C-alpha cells in the first residue's frame, strides 16, 4: 500500500467508489486533503495548538527569545481557568496581538498590585466577568497594571506544555507568585 492509495482510501470509502478500477481518483485525493485540513483546523481552533511566546514579560518562566508552548482551548471554553494559570489572551491595546500572562485574580478577587519592584502597593478589585493578568517579569511587562482588568471573553487558551527548548521541556506550572496575594471578597 503506497501513499497515493492511502490518500485515496477514505474518500473512495465514503463515496462508494473503488480506486483500483479507475487508477488514482484525483477527486478523492482532493476530498481527503480538504477533510484533513478541516480536521486540523478544528483541533487548532477548539482543542490545542502550538504557540510561540516571544517577549520579556514572562521572563523567569519563559525565555524572551521565544519558547514553543502548546496551548489548549478547552479550559477556557469550560470556564476552568484558575488563579495562577498561564493564559494566552487577545491584547487589550491591540486586537491583532496575543499576549501570554499569568492570571492573578478572578472576578470578585482583590489583588495586591505593586508597580515595578518598589512601586506603591495598592489593592485592585477585579470586576464581574474579568480577570487580572500580569507577567512574571514585573519590571518589564505591559499588563493589567497598565490597562486594567481584562474581560474573560478575551482569553484564548491556557499554556500547559512547554516543548522547546528541549532541556526545559515539561508541564507549565500553575502557581501564584510570592509577590501577589489575593483575597476573595
Amino acid at each position, binding site marked *: 500500500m503506497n501513499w497515493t492509495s492511502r490518500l485515496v482510501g477514505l474518500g473512495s470509502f465514503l463515496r462508494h467508489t473503488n480506486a483500483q478500477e479507475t487508477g488514482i481518483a484525483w477527486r478523492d485525493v482532493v476530498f481527503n486533503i480538504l477533510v484533513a485540513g478541516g480536521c486540523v483546523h478544528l483541533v487548532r481552533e477548539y482543542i490545542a495548538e502550538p504557540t510561540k511566546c516571544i517577549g520579556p514579560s514572562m521572563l523567569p518562566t519563559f525565555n524572551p527569545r521565544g519558547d514553543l508552548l502548546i496551548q489548549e482551548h478547552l479550559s477556557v471554553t469550560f*470556564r476552568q481557568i484558575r488563579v495562577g494559570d498561564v493564559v494566552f489572551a*487577545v*491584547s*487589550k*491595546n*491591540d*486586537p*491583532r496581538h496575543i499576549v501570554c500572562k499569568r492570571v492573578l485574580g478572578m472576578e470578585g478577587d482583590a489583588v495586591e498590585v505593586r508597580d515595578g519592584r518598589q512601586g506603591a502597593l495598592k489593592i485592585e478589585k477585579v*470586576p*464581574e*466577568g*474579568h480577570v487580572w493578568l500580569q507577567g512574571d517579569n514585573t519590571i518589564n511587562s505591559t499588563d493589567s497594571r497598565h*490597562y486594567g482588568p*481584562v*474581560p*474573560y*471573553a*478575551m482569553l484564548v487558551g491556557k499554556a500547559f506544555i512547554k516543548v522547546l527548548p528541549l532541556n526545559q521541556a515539561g508541564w507549565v506550572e500553575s502557581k501564584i507568585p510570592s509577590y501577589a496575594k489575593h483575597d476573595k471578597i
Partner: protein
Amino acid sequence: MQPTLNPVESSQADRILINRWSAKLLHRYERGQVVLLRSPHDPDLLILKRLIGLEGDWVVVPNHTDIETVPQGHCWVEGDNPACSMDSRTAYGSVPLGLIQGRASCIIWPPERVSWVDSHAPTNRLLMTNQQALQRTDSSQWFRRR
C-alpha cells in the same frame, strides 16, 4: 437595536448572517457597522451594537458634562434604541476591540425583511474623529513651540 433589527411591526425575530472574517481575520473596524461582541461582564452573553467610535475618537456622552476619549485598542458601541440599550453609554464604557466577534452583514429571515444590514454612522455622536483630534493636537503643539 430597534428599529434596525426586530422592528415593532415585525412578528418574528430577525435572523442575521454574521461576517466573521472582517473582524477576526482582517481586523477591519469601521464606524457605523453593526457588530457582534461578547459582553465584557459576561463571557457567555453575545450582544449586537453599532460601532460609534474607534480608538482616539472623542465621544459625546449624553447626560454627562465631560467628553470621553476612546483609549487605544478600544471602541465605543451603542444600540440604535437609546431608550433601552445596555451599551457603552449606560453600562460598559469603552469596550476592547478584541471582544468583537464579527459584523452583521445581512438579514436572512423572515423572508419579507431579507436585506443588507445598513451601516451608517449617526451624526452628532462624535465630537472629533481620531484624525481630527490628531490634527488638533499637532497644530496646538506647533503653536506652543512658536
